[in-house]
């Protein structure tokens, strides 16, 4: 069946603020993969392109079902990730709303194209369902691949659970498409721990969808031979080696990172800000993103029960990095503990660089290669930092 003959569903188009903040919601018990595809369903996506990799496959299967039901106009399985990400870049020139997702090695394979999306001004949404990067081969969760995304220019959100996955994915479309942003938004969450596990997700009716993509509201007009101004270039200085080309390229790079910074105000508007802080001013602050934030939240609860001075900073936005917010949240901390699902500690490095007293940031605890992050691991660090006797043996 061609894209033209797709069934047209009768849905009510609404603004993102209404969708996220005002529309009545109902509680569902679903997996993270379902949450992401349900968000895509409500995002009024024109086209989705998929290439399978565990644990992402579950998301893109469900997005395929969403397409079959008529919520998406076009969907296909591409040849591999570079082909997928390149096709997204191509389709974007026609002025449509786009979604794809990948995991670990797939992200690395597609990275050449993904890293060019901001420069191409592709406002697509990319799901990253984290997975170990080979070798040795493993399909388990580990978010090392996010480290490779940090300097791509894309906006990056990191979801803690199924609810975040739903809300962040939906908001990502609105953030990406703002005229003063107009770069891709990646929504990451941990493979299996979130994608294949069920959690409670409050969702609005699927009869409501985000208003349709407006190809005219763009800093770079669609290359559709319809949207002015015409993009006829009789000369292409960027293609040559001369001072003008260097200048154009440097200005373009600055603009991408400025666009990335400008996404922050929309992260406030749609997601209530880039961080969530519990017990500000505590001696010990746990700082974490994604699934590690869920475990840190649990450690925080234990600590409250024991009357310890422990707070929590959950980082929702990895790019733009909430430097100011983190500085503020950690201003009174004596120790910062950063639990992570990767060996390199990319979040730890970012936090150290963001605050004037980086020495208070504790390295770890870190788990990787698919290991789970027991709350005891975090409690161990808390007890040690406070000099409290404990019986946790590692």
């Amino acid at each position: 069946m061609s894209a033209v003959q797709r069934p047209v569903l009768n849905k009510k188009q609404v603004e993102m603020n209404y969708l996220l903040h005002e529309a009545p919601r109902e509680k569902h018990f679903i997996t993270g993969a379902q949450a992401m595809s349900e968000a895509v369903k409500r995002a009024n996506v024109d086209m989705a392109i998929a290439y399978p990799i565990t644990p992402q496959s579950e998301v893109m299967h469900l997005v395929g079902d969403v397409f079959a039901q008529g919520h998406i106009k076009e969907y296909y399985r591409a040849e591999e990730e570079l082909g997928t990400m390149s096709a997204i870049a191509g389709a974007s020139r026609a002025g449509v709303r786009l979604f794809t997702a990948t995991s670990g090695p797939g992200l690395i394979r597609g990275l050449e194209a993904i890293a060019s999306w901001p420069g191409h001004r592709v406002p697509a949404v990319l799901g990253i369902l984290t997975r170990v990067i080979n070798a040795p081969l493993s399909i388990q969760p580990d978010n090392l691949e996010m480290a490779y995304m940090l300097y791509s220019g894309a906006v990056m959100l990191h979801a803690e659970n199924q609810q975040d996955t739903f809300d962040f994915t939906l908001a990502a479309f609105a953030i990406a498409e703002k005229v003063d942003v107009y770069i891709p938004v990646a929504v990451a969450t941990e493979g299996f721990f979130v994608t294949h596990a069920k959690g409670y997700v409050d969702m609005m009716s699927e009869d409501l969808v985000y208003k349709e993509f407006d190809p005219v509201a763009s800093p770079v007009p669609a290359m559709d031979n319809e949207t002015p101004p015409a993009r006829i270039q009789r000369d292409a200085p960027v293609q040559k080696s001369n001072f003008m080309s260097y200048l154009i390229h440097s200005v373009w790079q600055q603009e991408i990172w400025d666009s990335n910074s400008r996404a922050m105000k929309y992260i406030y508007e749609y997601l209530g800000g880039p961080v969530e802080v519990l017990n500000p001013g505590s001696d010990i602050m746990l700082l974490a993103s994604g699934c590690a934030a869920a475990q840190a939240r649990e450690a925080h609860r234990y600590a409250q029960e024991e009357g310890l001075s422990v707070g929590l900073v959950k980082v929702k936005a990895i790019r733009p990095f909430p430097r100011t917010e983190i500085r503020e949240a950690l201003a009174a901390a004596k120790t910062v503990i950063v639990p992570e699902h990767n060996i390199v500690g990319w979040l730890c490095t970012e936090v150290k660089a963001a605050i004037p007293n980086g020495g208070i940031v504790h390295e770890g605890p870190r788990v990787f290669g698919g290991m789970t992050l027991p709350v005891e691991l975090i409690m161990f660090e808390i007890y040690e930092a406070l000099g409290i006797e404990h019986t946790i043996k590692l």
Partner: protein
Amino acid sequence: MSLAYITPSERFKKYLPKDYVELIDFGPFGKTQEEAGPGNMGQFKELMEEHPMCSGCWMAYYIRLIFASLPCPEETVTIGTAGCGRLAISQAAVPFIYGNYGDQNAMASGLTRAFRLRFPDKTKDVITIAGDGGTMDIGFSMTMHSWIRGERFTTIMLDNEVYGNTGGQSSGMSPKGAVLKMAPMGKDFEKMPATDLAKAAGCVYIVRMSPTNIKAAAKVIRRAIFVAREVGPTFIHAYTSCNIEYSIPTEDVFADAIELGKGRFKFDEYMTDEAKIVIERVEGEEKAARKARKAAKVAEAVN
């Protein structure tokens, strides 16, 4: 809207670059091939005039020919990749997308599908124009899979049998035995059978040629575009020599193209029955339109 959107209002014209205004007034937009086709090159404002290619570059000539042959330049988007070709393609007055290395057919897949869903009642021509390296080496998987999926756009391979832009390295399309960079002892495997691969992958119109005959080359380009609109993927494998890396004296470039046109670039045209129906219909319509115009002219002269 497409022609209208590039046409400036009369009062605004004086503020626009002369080059742009002349292109609208005297360019090939909205004109027929007799008025502004390759046969009349030099007599109308061309889509591509200047280029930064080497003196005697046969590829630059063929790229100019492609643009002069477009059935509907105001509704065309070209996609290319790294290589010499993009230096000239990007200077044509047709939207050009420069992707990453060898990803032109993947980009075109996304673009073509998105055009069809946004403009179901319009014809938007998408053409990928890339070199032998971009099409058959680094972009091989994306080229092949776009054909296997039956994506409806035209792929043109500018085969100069070498990586010209990066300094003369051997490519999959270089002939066996060619001593080139990265093949210092001579290339030790055969030139890739590009047109056979295209056939196996499901291209519905395939031509291999050395484009020495302007009329024949233009006809092939137009056929490939017409068929891609309605039937499926089409592929042109054209010889566009690199006179620098193969040390062909400028005055011998044409003779070399003629010579190879008798050899490994011998004209070969393949079309499926479905493609043939489209070609016969469109060319029949064009012929009828030409006849009608001629008759009208005669009638006018008589009156």
